[in-house]
């Protein structure tokens, strides 16, 4: 933007009498001025809701008794700590989202490598593989609940029956895992798409050169393709985590928050709409944001090259 502004200024004939530093300064202040509207909008849409949430978190606000609103000091935050629901939900979220991200990333990589090859019907295969990502979350939870995991007529138990394994009560015995199933199924295409873009940006000449130098396909994949994919995988992990942390539909439809399936977003929903405690739910939200910022800052700075090195390793 500054470059554009500079050339504009040069062309409109601001003579050579103005010295370099003054021109730079006016350039910068002009640049700042044109950023202001966008910046203001960004603040309004992101920070005002957050400030409102902080305000609510200091209120006694019970939806069932809306007439009795009052200032609560740190009562809601005390409730978050003493209820004993926050840490288990945080742990559930980490386990569910973490395993879904890892499994879908691995599956996505396999599918991306397959789709990177030329074969007849590749376009059809790609469309079919993307489909789960396009299905609405509530619909995919229903598909899994009724068609796949049902204890009587579900396809998975039917397949188990063929090899003599007795039917499994998925939602009752493994509530957290059923949520992981749905998330993995839904987000594998997402991971696949990002990694496929990475694979297709790899230079064919370099791979050919490596082949001429005598490297086998496995060695090429390990020493050239995987390092090349690193920034793509980081981006996939980051975006995937952000999207999956919001998981709600499978929890609500399949398990109702039983067992280890109660994630932070479901806990928030419960406090706000079943517990009807708006203040307490807001306090959960604020604490969640603080924890997320802390974790994200450490993780982004240390683990992710895409944020530390200019341009990363993607070229």
């Amino acid at each position, binding site marked *: 933007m500054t470059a554009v502004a500079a050339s504009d200024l040069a062309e409109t004939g601001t003579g050579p009498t103005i010295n370099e530093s003054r021109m730079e300064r006016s350039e910068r202040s002009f640049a700042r001025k044109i950023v202001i509207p966008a910046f203001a909008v960004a603040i309004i849409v992101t920070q005002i809701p957050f400030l409102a949430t902080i305000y609510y978190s200091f209120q006694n606000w019970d939806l069932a008794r809306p007439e009795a609103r009052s200032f609560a000091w740190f009562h809601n935050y005390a409730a978050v700590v003493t209820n004993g629901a926050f840490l288990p939900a945080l742990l559930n979220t980490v386990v569910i989202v973490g395993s879904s991200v890892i499994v879908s990333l691995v599956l996505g990589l396999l599918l991306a490598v397959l789709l990177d090859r030329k074969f007849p019907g590749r376009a059809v295969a790609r469309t079919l593989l993307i489909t789960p990502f396009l299905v609405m979350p509530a619909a995919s939870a229903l598909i899994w609940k009724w068609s796949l995991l049902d204890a009587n007529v579900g396809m998975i138990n039917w397949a188990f029956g063929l090899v003599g394994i007795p039917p499994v*009560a998925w939602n009752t015995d493994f509530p957290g895992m059923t949520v992981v199933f749905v998330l993995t199924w839904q987000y594998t295409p997402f991971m696949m798409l990002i990694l496929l873009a990475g694979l297709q940006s790899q230079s064919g000449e370099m791979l050919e050169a490596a082949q001429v130098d005598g490297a086998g396909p496995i060695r090429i994949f390990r020493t050239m393709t995987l390092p090349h994919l690193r920034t793509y995988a980081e981006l996939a992990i980051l975006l995937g985590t952000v999207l999956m942390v919001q998981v709600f539909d499978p929890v609500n439809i399949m*398990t109702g928050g039983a067992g280890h399936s109660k994630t932070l977003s479901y806990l928030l929903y419960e406090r706000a709409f079943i517990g009807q405690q708006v203040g307490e739910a807001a306090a959960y939200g604020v604490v969640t944001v603080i924890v997320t910022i802390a974790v994200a800052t450490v993780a982004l700075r240390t683990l992710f090259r895409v944020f530390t090195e200019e341009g990363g390793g993607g070229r």
Partner: protein
Amino acid sequence: MFGNRRSTRAPGSRPGFRRVGMRQPGRHRAALVAGVGAASLMLTVSGCAGFGNLGNQPGVTTITLASVNNPQMQDLATLLPEFEKAHPDIKVNVIMMEENDLRNATTKDVATRGGQYDVMTVGAYEVPMWGRNGWLTDLTAKAKADPSYDVNDFFKPVQQSVSYDNRIYAAPFYGESSFLMYRKDLFQKAGLTMPAHPTWQQVAQLAAKLKDPSQDRAGICLRGKPGWGEQFAPLTTVVNTFGGQWYNMSWDAQVNKPGFSNAVNFYVNTIKQSGERDPASFGFTECLNLFQQGRAAMWYDATSAAGTLETKGSPVAGKVGYVSAPVVKTKESGWLWTWNLAINSLSKHQQADWEFVKWATSKQYEELVGQRLGWARVPPGTRQSLYANPQYQQASSAFAGLTAQTLRSVDPTHPGVDPQPWTGIQFVGIPEFQDVGNQTSQQIANTFSGGESVADALDKGQRIAQIAGDTQKREAGK
């Protein structure tokens, strides 16, 4: 209604929405012209009336009805022209909502004294609480003043469910109880008979004999899905008849006391031994599906389920027997749920509101539905006279008699062994119960897999319940 509680809708589906004119560029301009034409026509029409009063005529009172979107209320909406024909000076504007949305919207409106809705469908859970708070108009005098309305025709428990301190705060529109449904053919094949008034122990024994893993059939289906209106609707009735209760008269929680814990242990063990395979995901809809597909020999649930089981094309139609809710220490153990029409105490046209409420809950309305839409679609469970009507008896013979008998004999003020300080059978009439019931039901769902013991689950439930109990104690002390 408790039977049809659904907390999630598939988002984004709008069947009426179609993008006309966007597909072909040629149609684009035509659509634009039509749109502009329609807009200018609207402007001309509404020019004198002003935007807020669009369509209002002088001398006509418009009342706003916030309604739950169950089938009976949808029938009411289609019959509204009949009401407006008889009352040309009243116009009814209906806003339909899904149950949870309705509960949130109406609670906010009455509690913040918004006055947005004049008439609301209010469930049996809220009517006594809202009546006590003065949020609803006291209808006692109006209802008793008109002999043709015949207020004593309502089942007494149904009338109690809409009363606080002997004052009526809503008019019952729909009522249901719970009973035990069983497959007559399977019982006959197994050489078993169902007692007319079974005990829960008998039911558990029968369930153990009737379960058949080779046929993929459960002995009984009982709701296990977490939720105060899912798992705890049937489970609280079991707790009541086992001699347990949520709170005693001084609002001390009783969740880990013997009566409650015996009942929960029995419920969980019965499901584990002869119930459905995946109880944590089984609510009303799932049990209905299981029973209708012939994969359960018995089912304890809402009386409203019978209508679906007996419709044409149902695989079990004609094969289902009905007996009253199983008991242990009490004489009767069915639940009671009603949807009622209540008037916002802030509404500015109380008389018009009452005219509408009276019409919708009258004998004439039942007659109207019977003649126009068929007797099977009359909202059941409120008026005794309906069950004496030969046409209605003919349309719903399999279960009508038992429904009426149950609705006559349940006692929402004293459903268990010990007295309780609220009105309601399968719920506690305090705002916090949704939360308490929901959290405790999640703990109980964890015990199905054996991951947690019932005693631990109920200890946690006790702590959760006592917090709400302490709030009640504070409010009672004020």
